[in-house]
């Protein structure tokens, strides 16, 4: 049986999930549990790092679909980074790039959160 592990790393408001191994119908519930855990803790600014993920199936993608609205309703987001071409192909095939921020480097994802923070602060200032 192929293994799947999630390593979580919290940096201030951000939570980074480093996925490795095989994310398929069998292991998808583990990722779902981890995301639920973050949501329960009120942590909604999530970056998923795919650098060490070898395989993803539709069920794996389904986990992200199931959580994105909740996370966004908490004023957060799930941003994705460091996909290998093979992993990106699956996301691309199913049309994910229009729905999620998918960037090359983790730092870019961090910046995306930061810039959104700034723009919403500016909006607050104006109001």
């Amino acid at each position, binding site marked *: 049986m192929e293994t799947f592990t999630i390593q979580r790393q919290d940096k201030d408001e951000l939570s980074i999930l480093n996925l490795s191994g095989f994310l*398929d*119908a*069998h292991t*998808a*519930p583990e990722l*779902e549990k981890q995301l639920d855990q973050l949501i329960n803790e009120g942590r909604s600014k999530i970056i998923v790092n795919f650098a060490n993920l070898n395989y993803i*199936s*539709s*069920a*794996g*993608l*389904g*986990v*992200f*679909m*199931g959580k*994105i*609205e*909740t996370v966004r*309703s908490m004023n957060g987001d799930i941003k994705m980074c460091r996909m290998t071409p093979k992993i990106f*192909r*699956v996301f691309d*095939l*199913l*049309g*994910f790039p*229009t*729905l999620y921020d998918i960037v090359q480097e983790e730092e870019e994802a961090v910046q995306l959160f930061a810039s959104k923070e700034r723009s919403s602060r500016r909006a607050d200032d104006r109001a």
Partner: protein
Amino acid sequence: MMRARSSARKLDLRSVELRSLIELSQVLNASLDADAVLNTCLLTPMGRMLISRGMALTADENGSLGVRILKGLPASLAQQRFTFEYAFRTPTRLAELPDDVCRYKPFLQSLGIELVVPMCSPSRMVGALCFGGKMTGKPFSPRELEFLNSFSNIAATALENALMFQSLITVNRRLDRKVHELNTLFEVGKELNTALDRERILAILQHTVMGQMTVNKLIMIEVGEDQTIEYPILKWPERTELDRILAEKELILSLSELNEARLLTAEEPAHRLLFEAGVRAVVPMRLQEETRALLLLGKRLSRQEYAQEDLDFLSTLGNRVMVSLENVRLFQEALEKQRLEEEMAIAESIQQRLLPRTFPSLHGIEIYGLNQPSRMVGGDYFDCIPLSDGRVVLAVGDVSGKGLGAALLMSNLHAGLHTLLQSGLPMNEMIKRLNDLIYRHTDFDKFITFFYAELDPQSRLLRYVNAGHNPPMLCRSDGSIGLLTEGGLILGMLEDVDYMIGQVELRSGDLLAAYTDGVTDARNSADELFDEDRLAELVRTAARSDLRADELCTQIVKAVEDFSGDLPQADDITLLIVKVQEKT
């Protein structure tokens, strides 16, 4: 001199034109992007001839031309399509197109279009360029038209290549998606094969559908045979929409008659309510040609509509999941059955312990009893209890019904009798109390037929009460058979019933057989009853036999079994025999 200068200028111009054509052909043929090709095709002539408006059209497989790029024209034209019934292969002034064969002519003229340049490959019109007039106000010269002709011929090939490349990409992508779908089904199938609990299977279904379809609104509805509705999956972030869907019970029941997946549209009045609540597709989950459940899907977040391919995928997945859910159900049922059987086995062993395993050895009298339960536990009871004064209690009872309920009542009877035996009450009073006990603790449809006797081995007197039980047969040495009928009503029917005591004296060579109706009601393959006559005959034979009581007992029970042959034993069989030995 003047002529020489003017012809040199003409040559120069010619060479510039040729150079730009070569350059263009290089640029165009290097690009596989249709938009880039068309962009160049518009901008080059617009720059050279000072044209301020133009548009590029590409043909679909039916030859209809769709607007692809607009320059200096309103963006609202982007969705516009044109057809030219009139076949032309060279740049043509709009004014020169025959009115009656191009119905778009007035419209194009209203846009300020003056020139139409077809882009033709050898086989078909691939696209077209439309240009407005020159800003200089001068008409297009024959030279310019000739240039545009060469230009469009070169561009047509590049455009055709680019369009073909694009459609190849589309085809490839569709192929990729198909491969991915197959992989998904393969992987899910593998996973479902090992999943043995329902929750896990439902999670696999949910994740796979949501990931593959980019949808986060999903309901699974199971419709039972009795039209009960259950919702194993309820993923619908909008609470109010969800409530509206769930309120449409009748609609959902009517959907359960669907046998193939379909899109919902606002146009169909039958499904309008669901559509308004956000449902876009309904996928029946079928098992053995029967719709057992439905998937309702909301809008896709990718904003794409569900294509037929998607519906096919969802149907395949849904049916596959249904098989797994059914397997789990059957597995659970088998487990449950096994658990029940184990419990019955425990009950049986407890019940068997309530029955006597040893019989008192008396001078000149043999007692033996046998119980053969039918479906594990049953409601037959018999007992043989030596009292301290040397008398022996004999009892045979039959509790109504079968299974655990009957077994429980039988153990109640056993406990009641053993307790009352301590009371020292006369036997008819004891049976009266036993009746009251059973009456109080059971429903009216639960009762017990009961034969109770006390045998004094010294006097060989047998006193008994028969509470509605099959009368035991007492076979005398002369072969005559008497029935022990004295007593009263069966136990548990009415309260406060009086019982009479019967009495017989046993003599040498007598055989007493008390039994339950499992013996006389046994049937053979011709549906005949074993009945009392056959039993009486066996008892008569037994009375004359030299065999011991236990051997006789076994022999009679075996005769009943042989009578039934291969038919399963329908009821418990109980037989209690008292054999009074011949004087020696």
